[in-house]
């Protein structure tokens, strides 16, 4: 094995390396870090926004973005609480369908009316927040169906269900992107929408599907979150868009579109999750955590911008 090869692998897997180094440092610093319970907690904490990050990765690869994910997640959780009197399945279905519907709306607005996605989803973000507050009358609402919590509190091998859902979805969509026609179309449209159109790819349909997918996943994340404590409120997901976009970019997916893999988003989410966990272990104040999250997003997009610039000159 020659040295350049090792260097290439190190550059390629830099996020994994950072996770490893951070993990070793934390396990030396705190006896609690490397316990089964804590690792499970980290995965449980990231699983909800992790589901959304899968959708965000695909959306960014196709060349669009969605700022409304947090409001849509809150919408999904509120619907899950409101519809659970009709049965667990009704609550789950309502939350997911509601999220997917908002995603579809975003997609149609962007593709049919040719609007910039960042501005449209800023609008739907405010709109859906209002809808959620209207539905909850600005209170935290509690579910009446006690058994609803089985969807998130059930454990297999001492690991709660949302973690499995996140991992299965990540594997599923990694395969969809790699193996399916849809995946190929996503990369083609993100790489060059005009050329894709000339090749007969239905660009509008692919993009609408990606928006619907992230809506679906945000709704699902909301449903699973509601299942955790069986409560919902308009304050859910306030900073989810910052978290998810930071995670996806941190994983190395560029805002330029056309490139990236689901695994990168998962790595980004995992790293952010470990960082959040570390900040809690080190008893860093939540206010400082917010400062760090803000700075991190700024640093990440600067690095992304620099690497896009470099690519142009190469």
């Amino acid at each position, binding site marked *: 094995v020659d040295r350049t090869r090792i260097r290439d692998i190190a550059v390629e897997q830099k996020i994994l390396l950072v996770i490893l180094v951070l993990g070793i440092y934390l396990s030396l610093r705190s006896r609690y870090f490397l316990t089964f319970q804590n690792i499970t907690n980290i995965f449980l904490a990231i699983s909800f926004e992790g589901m959304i990050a899968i959708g965000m990765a695909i959306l960014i690869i196709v060349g669009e*973005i969605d*700022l409304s994910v947090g409001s849509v997640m809150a919408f999904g959780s509120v619907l899950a609480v409101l519809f659970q009197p009709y049965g667990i399945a009704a609550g789950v279905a309502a939350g997911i369908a509601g999220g997917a519907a908002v995603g579809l709306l975003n997609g149609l*607005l962007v593709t049919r*009316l*040719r*609007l*910039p996605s*960042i*501005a*449209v989803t*800023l*609008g*739907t*973000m*405010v*709109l*859906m*927040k*209002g*809808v*959620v*507050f*209207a539905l909850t*009358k*600005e209170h935290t609402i509690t579910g009446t169906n006690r058994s609803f919590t089985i969807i998130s509190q059930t454990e297999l091998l001492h690991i709660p269900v949302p973690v499995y859902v996140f991992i299965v979805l990540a594997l599923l969509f990694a395969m969809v992107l790699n193996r399916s026609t849809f995946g190929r179309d996503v990369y083609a449209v993100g790489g060059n929408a005009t050329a894709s159109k000339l090749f007969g790819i239905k660009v509008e349909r692919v993009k609408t599907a990606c928006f619907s997918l992230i809506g679906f996943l945000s709704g699902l994340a909301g449903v699973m979150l509601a299942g955790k404590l069986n409560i919902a409120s*308009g304050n859910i997901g306030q*900073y989810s*868009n*910052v978290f998810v*976009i930071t995670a996806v970019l941190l994983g190395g997916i560029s*805002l330029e579109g056309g490139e990236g893999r689901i695994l990168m988003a998962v790595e980004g989410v995992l790293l952010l999750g470990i960082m959040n966990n570390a900040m809690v272990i080190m008893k860093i*104040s*939540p*206010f*400082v*955590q*917010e*400062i*760090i*999250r*803000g*700075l*991190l*997003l*700024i640093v990440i*997009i*600067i690095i*992304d*911008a*620099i690497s896009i*610039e470099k690519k142009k000159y190469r």
Partner: protein
Amino acid sequence: MKKARSILINNLKEQTQVIILIAFVVVFSLISPEFRTSGNFINLLKQVTVIGVISCGMTIVVITGCLDLSVGSVFSLLGLVGILLQQRSNILGVVVPLACAVAIGLFNGFIVTKYRVNSIIATLGSLSLFSGIALLITNGAIIAGRTGTWFGIIGRGRFLGVPNHVYVLFIVAIIFHIILSRTALGRKMKYVGTNTVAAEIAGVRSKRIRTVAFVISSLSVGVAVLIYTSRMTTASPITGVGYEFDAVTAVVIGGTSLAGGKGSIFKTIVGVLLLATIINLLTLYNFPFAFQSIIKGILIITAIVIDVRARKK
């Protein structure tokens, strides 16, 4: 005659928002006796000064083709800084927030222009950053300043029966209007917003112009903070939450294009009044607060649709 008529029609098309505003006020006055009282009109003007001043600054940033989502958390932060210092000295309570505003504007402008990053995502980052700092300063607590000093003159004083801060809004609007329509700086801002590459080829330093726009935006937040602290003599780390959306809504429904290059302060003021009139009516009829958010979301999307349609023609 024909020519005169077409000019008239074109002018009317340009002023859609003004016509809508007038129609709203007339219709609302007819259907609601509470709305048409002079007390309510003064109230309406009093309510819009803070958002109005912030929106004027936002207009400048939008014209250069960017967006500043950090204004809300910057507002909270500067309010706390102002009140903390005003507890000791009124002058510091006025000067330091404005100085901080300039520094914050330079920070935002530097990040966005130096690395050419998307301004929405960058300022989403600084929103989180400054809101964290604001929460940290007082550990989440609300603080109060000293009352009964000249500090309250902007917020509580009146001249000829009109609150002083309404004059402040007018002065800010007029200054910004002059900058945009009469100065080289304003022209350059519109060039940069229309076509950055072309503007740079023509010798306009687009990075510097955009940075100035961000400074103007933060500075107007600073002025809005003075109005607020002067009136309330209190500050909380969450005062400004959501102000960014109010300002963006006002700017886009006024008719300033989010694509940059086009827009005016007059339009934004009309947008601010339009938004305030709608919210005022919702409040008078006891609609829950949530509906304000729904209406704002619908207005933002509608305004973007109209703007994109208009540019296609």
